[in-house]
């Protein structure tokens, strides 16, 4: 999977460069509400429940101020990724204990045509492992800037 391939999974309506949330729970709600608002998801409660269960398994705060909450849900028909940024950082119970500033929420349907969900997750981990990318993403204010960074990642 190339960086260019990533771009189709993002949507300007799911670009939240200035999150209001101050806690992990509020963060999930704020992003899921946006998914529901733009009609990518049907059931807010079911998806929130799925994301909370996922955190029980182990934190999706992967360290270095990044979180990648993710999961498949019967309440979605396509894979979509929301990008959100918190300027002040949110306590997330991340594996390195650091607060989280960059959040990529990946939601996938029960079955996706080309089985892209797992490769997509892997690709996001790879992109976010590079400190250069994380620094640039922290600066991105517009969707265009954001897409530019991802495409070069």
């Amino acid at each position, binding site marked *: 999977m190339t960086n260019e391939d990533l771009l189709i999974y993002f949507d300007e309506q799911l670009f939240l460069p200035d999150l209001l949330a101050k806690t992990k729970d509020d963060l999930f709600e704020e992003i899921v509400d946006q998914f529901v608002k733009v*009609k990518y998801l*049907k*059931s807010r*409660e*079911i998806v929130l*429940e*799925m994301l909370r*269960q*996922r955190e*029980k*398994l*182990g*934190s*999706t705060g*992967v360290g270095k101020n990044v979180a*990648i909450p993710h*999961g*498949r*849900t*019967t*309440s*979605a*028909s396509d894979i979509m990724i929301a990008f959100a940024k918190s300027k002040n950082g949110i306590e997330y119970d991340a*594996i390195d204990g650091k607060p989280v500033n960059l959040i990529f929420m990946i939601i996938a*349907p*029960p*079955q996706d045509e080309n089985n892209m969900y*797992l490769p997509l*997750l*892997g690709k996001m*981990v790879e992109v976010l492992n590079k400190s250069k990318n994380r620094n640039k993403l922290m600066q991105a204010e517009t969707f265009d800037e954001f897409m530019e960074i991802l495409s070069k990642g």
Partner: protein
Amino acid sequence: MSLWKYFRKGKILEKKQLDLLVALQDLDMMIEEISEMKRLGFSADREDELLKAREDLAAKIKKPLLYSYEKLKKRYKRAIVPVKEDNTCLGCFIRLPTSMSSIGRTDEEVIYCEGCGRILYWLT
């Protein structure tokens, strides 16, 4: 809401049952992909937590419904499939009759696809 409405055909109960079943499938998909999550470098060590949550959730679902879910899961891997706005079953891709979708959209009954037999979940 009047009590009378609440008891009418027990439909509100059905709606809740379908939501529980959808949440159960979401958990099952998560459990199924634990090893892939670990391989990708995610923290996913508390499998016991998920298995416990699954057990608690399954206990809230009526036995016949749970049984039909498990049977469908064995056959198709995914027992419940989303239905998109064009009324196609995402399991077998047949077009569902409009009469079926108007009932399905209300979420008041558990409806099975007439093409493949999977449980349908309307997204719109």
